[in-house]
């Protein structure tokens, strides 16, 4: 059973500071890990991904880190902006099938 767990239901951050969202997983094979972002009343949208053969992937303000020995994934947002307020899902994918974490609600205060 391949699980993805986000143990923090919510995170509150001041505008301009760093947001760090965390995720743990089990039983990894050669998978991709993704982060999806979801605004209320909308579907999730893809944010950034990382292959399990890499340790880091960066795209603008967003960086994802993968610690394979700890089976831990984190998303860093620097600097955080009020428009980043949303639910963030940690997702693993294996041959196109996605397994979602429970999500973390990020609130960025002005």
């Amino acid at each position, binding site marked *: 059973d391949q699980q993805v767990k986000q143990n923090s239901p919510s995170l509150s951050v001041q505008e301009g500071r760093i947001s760090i969202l965390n995720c743990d997983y089990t039983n990894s094979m050669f998978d*991709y890990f993704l982060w999806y972002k979801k605004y209320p009343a909308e579907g999730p949208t893809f944010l950034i991904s990382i*292959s399990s053969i890499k340790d880091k992937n960066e795209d603008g303000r967003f960086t994802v880190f993968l610690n394979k020995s700890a089976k831990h994934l984190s998303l860093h947002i620097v600097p955080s902006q009020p428009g980043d307020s949303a639910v963030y899902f940690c*997702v693993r*994918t294996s041959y196109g099938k996605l*397994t*979602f974490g429970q999500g973390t609600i990020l609130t960025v205060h002005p």
Partner: protein
Amino acid sequence: NAGVTQTPKFRVLKTGQSMTLLCAQDMNHEYMYWYRQDPGMGLRLIHYSVGEGTTAKGEVPDGYNVSRLKKQNFLLGLESAAPSQTSVYFCASSYRLSGSLSGEQFFGPGTRLTVL
């Protein structure tokens, strides 16, 4: 280019009623998916399709049926609705996977279904 659209946006059913949710995509994607999202949980895969005329079960398929008669459409049916099927339903689509393991999917806006 509308992306992925879902019909209807909201629906209230009584226990035992049936209904069909429609998903349409205009990106010529081979893969299509139906998910449900319950409060405090991530999305869970109900059924998916790897091409026109094909369907397969996901993580939580019981109580649902699907059909993919046309490449651009994926229908989700509830034959006899139950209160446990109260949820938000999302449809998604993705490019055909041919050796790639990346799994970006494009999601519709969701259908909020309440079963009384």
